[in-house]
Structure formats: C-alpha cells, structure tokens
C-alpha cells in the first residue's frame, strides 16, 4: 500500500480544491442558515460529473478510483457537511444499484444518477428503528407482480429534494430493498427542519400508505435487503463520511491556526500560549492518523478485499471522533467569537456531532470493532 498520491490523484485533488474553494466554501454558512442547498449549486456539482464519480464510464460515470473519490469527499466535507450528506446518500444508492441491481435496473438508473438528472436518497431509518436496522417495520406485501409499501421513514438526508429512494422494508418478514420514485402515489414527503447540525441536508420524513411499486423495482432479492443491499450502501456511506470528517478536521485546523496567529491576549499571540499549542498539536496529529485509516480503507476497497468492511468502520469511527474533538477545540480557541455566527467553527462543531451518529453511531462502530477484535482477526 502506498500512502502517497499518484499524479492523477494529485491532479484530481487540485481540481476538487479549486472548485470547492470557489463554489462551495464561501456559501456554506448561508446554506446552513437557509437550511438548504441551492439548486444551482447542485447543478454545478452535476456539471462536474461528480454525482457519477464512481459509476463506470460505460454507464455514464467518471469511474474514479477509490482514493480520488475519498479526496473529493474530503474537499466537500471541508466546506459543507450538508453537501457531503447529499453526495453521500446519492452515492449509497448508486453503489447499491451498481452492486445488486439487475442489468435492466443498472441501464435504467445509473446513467440518470451519474448525470445528476435523478438524485438518490437512502431510506432505512424509521421513527422507532435506528441502529436496530434489520428490524424495520415498513412492510412490503406482494400480490400480482407488485409490492404494496406501508410504513414511515425518518431523518432521511436529502429526502426533500431526492427523486428516487432506496427503501428498506420487510416482505413476508424478510428485509427487502426497493427503488421508489418520489411521485409514486401513496408516497408522501414531509420536511424536517431546525436540526442541530447538517442543517442544509434537507432532511425529510416519509410516509408510505398503499404505495404500489412494480416487482421490477426490487433491488437484490427478498431477504437480502439489509445484509447485502443496505450492507453495500452503508459501507459506501461510512467511507464518504470518514473522508468528509477529514475535511471537517482540516477546516477546524486551518481556522484555528489562522485565528491563533492573529489574535493577541496578554500581549502575545494565542499561537505562543502553550495550552493553545497543545490543542493545535492534537488536532494535527489526530487528523493525520484519521487520514491514514481512510487511505487504508481506500486501498482495501480498490482491491476489493474483505477486510475493507472493518477498515472502513474503523476509519469512520476514528475520523468522526477526531472531527468532534477538533471542532470542539476550534470553538474553544476562538472563545466567544467561536460561539458566534461570524465564524464557521460553531457550524463545524454542530456538524461534527452529527458525524458521530450517522451511518452507524460511534457506539455501533465500537461494538463491531470489539467483536472483530474478539475474533482474533
């Protein structure tokens, strides 16, 4: 495993950074305040081809390597965790269809998703079911070549603007995945506002009442909706969130260094106070450590090694914790200024808390990692 970027990855990184610095970074506070990401911004991302970053070229995507994709998520995460959330759930749907869709489903959906003509969202969580995900209550009864979906989903990222949803339900008591278009009769979307973090992620609650979908919308097979379809999606989501946390940690580091270099107290710059240096040093070191875990997960993904699943879980767990600590320290270094809307570090802290909860909470990752340890692998 090499931990230096290839020339191509380096070139990608420069392109990503230039775009994000110009089009996203200056507006991320406004996204947060307005609780939405403008359509024009989403269209600009689509024009870059990034909604199809990992989709094969034959299906209209860019077929980007796993590290370049991670670097893109890092750059997006550095600017806006809410935008990262949009990109994440779309990618999760793409990966689930790419891995487990039929040829016909791939031909139908992947080119539209790759171009961003259709935005995907992942709908697993329910009002009463979070981490215990394989026991979702949404039902999918089968009759005459179609399924009838009944139930509710909650906290669905980008649910307000998504065109297609990957819904995990129970068919005859077996977890099963479906692709459902937003205009399907009986499919109702209600916005959720005023969240702590990811405020521009346009969350929604979904209610399905007698929502009929064709058997052609079944992704994978009955009984494989959680273990395989959601499994592929969640692993993909953990990877993008881990890299996004690297971006968020980097933003905390840059903001803190910048502030500590300019702000004077007791006649000296903050950067010369040792307790400030301690926070900056930990920020830098933990950020580098998290980055290495992400590179390892990316490498294992590139060779499709079975260990990629656990490596991704560890990267996500460590990176989310790193971002939470870095953002809390960034606010501390900024003092009262950091608590105000004049500086972005308060947003970083609010978003970092969400990072510790989504795509498997810290505690779920810890439980998995510990079990893995007890296996002696």
């Amino acid at each position, binding site marked *: 495993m090499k931990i230096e970027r290839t020339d191509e990855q380096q070139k990608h990184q420069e392109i990503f950074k230039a775009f994000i610095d110009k089009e996203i970074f200056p507006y991320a506070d406004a996204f947060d305040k307005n609780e939405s990401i403008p359509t024009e911004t989403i269209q600009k991302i689509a024009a870059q081809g990034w909604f199809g970053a990992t989709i094969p070229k034959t299906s209209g995507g860019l077929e980007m390597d796993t590290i370049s994709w991670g670097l893109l998520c890092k750059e997006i995460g550095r600017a806006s965790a809410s935008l990262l959330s949009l990109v994440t759930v779309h990618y999760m749907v793409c990966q689930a269809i790419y891995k*487990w*869709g*039929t040829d016909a489903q791939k031909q139908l959906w992947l080119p539209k998703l790759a171009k961003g003509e259709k935005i995907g969202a992942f709908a697993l969580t329910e009002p009463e079911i979070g981490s215990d995900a*394989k026991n979702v209550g949404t039902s999918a009864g089968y009759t005459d070549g179609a399924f009838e979906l009944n139930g509710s989903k909650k906290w669905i990222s980008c649910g307000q603007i998504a065109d297609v949803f990957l819904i995990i339900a129970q068919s005859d008591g077996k977890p099963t995945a479906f692709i459902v278009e937003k205009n399907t009769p009986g499919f109702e979307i209600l916005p959720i506002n005023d969240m702590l973090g990811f405020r521009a992620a346009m969350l929604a609650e979904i209610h399905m009442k007698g929502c009929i979908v064709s058997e052609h919308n079944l992704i*994978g*097979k009955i*009984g*494989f909706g*959680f*273990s*395989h379809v959601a*499994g*592929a999606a969640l*692993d993909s989501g953990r990877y993008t969130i881990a890299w996004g946390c690297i971006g968020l940690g980097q933003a905390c580091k840059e903001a803190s260094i910048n502030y500590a270099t300019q702000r004077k107290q007791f006649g000296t710059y903050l950067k010369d106070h040792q307790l400030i240096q301690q926070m900056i040093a930990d920020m830098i070191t933990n950020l580098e450590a998290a980055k290495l875990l992400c590179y390892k997960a990316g490498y294992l993904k590139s*060779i*499709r*090694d*079975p260990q*990629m*699943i*656990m490596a991704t*879980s560890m990267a996500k767990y460590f990176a989310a914790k790193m971002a939470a600590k870095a953002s809390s320290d960034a606010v501390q270094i900024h003092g009262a200024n950091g608590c105000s809307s004049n500086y972005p570090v308060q947003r970083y802290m609010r978003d970092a808390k969400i990072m510790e909860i989504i795509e498997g909470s810290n505690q779920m990752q810890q439980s*998995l990692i510990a*079990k893995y340890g007890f*296996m*002696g*692998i």
Partner: protein
Amino acid sequence: MVKKMEGDFILMESSEIKQKIKEFLEKYIKNVDLSEDQDIFQSRLVNSLFAMQLVLFIEKEFKIKVENADLDLTNFNTIIAITAFIERKQNNEN
C-alpha cells in the same frame, strides 16, 4: 495436487475450494467445529457485516462476480453450497 486446465485458467479441485472457504469461515466462526453441511446463517454464527465480507472473499479469492441473480441463500449457507456455487460460476464464466 491435480488441477483441471481450461484455456488459461487453472481450476481448483473441490477439496481445495472447500479448504479455502473453511479457513475463511473459521476466522469469523470461533469455537465451533464447522461441518461442511452446517448452515452458517441459520445457526446465527455470524453478524450482519459477514454477508458482505463473504461476498468479497468469494469474488477476490475465486475471481468471480457475485451478482443479483446469485442472491439465493442456498448458494451461501454451507461450505458444500458455496463450493458448488463457485464451481458453477467458474464453469460459466470461463
């Protein structure tokens, strides 16, 4: 070990495939003497992440692609079933 040659591919004998699968499964399933016909899913020996790890192992180790049409528990639930599945896929893909 005698191997069947088909074109440029060297196909493993069933016993060799079974051994590799057993070695992989034994990493995840401890303190159980795993028999070839034991249902690894029904006996709740594995966690939710294992299903994807098994798919990745089969794809990487035996150079085949597990796809939508292959999603049938009877392809994955025992060492005998996984071996038969791999042999079928290798014969179709080669």
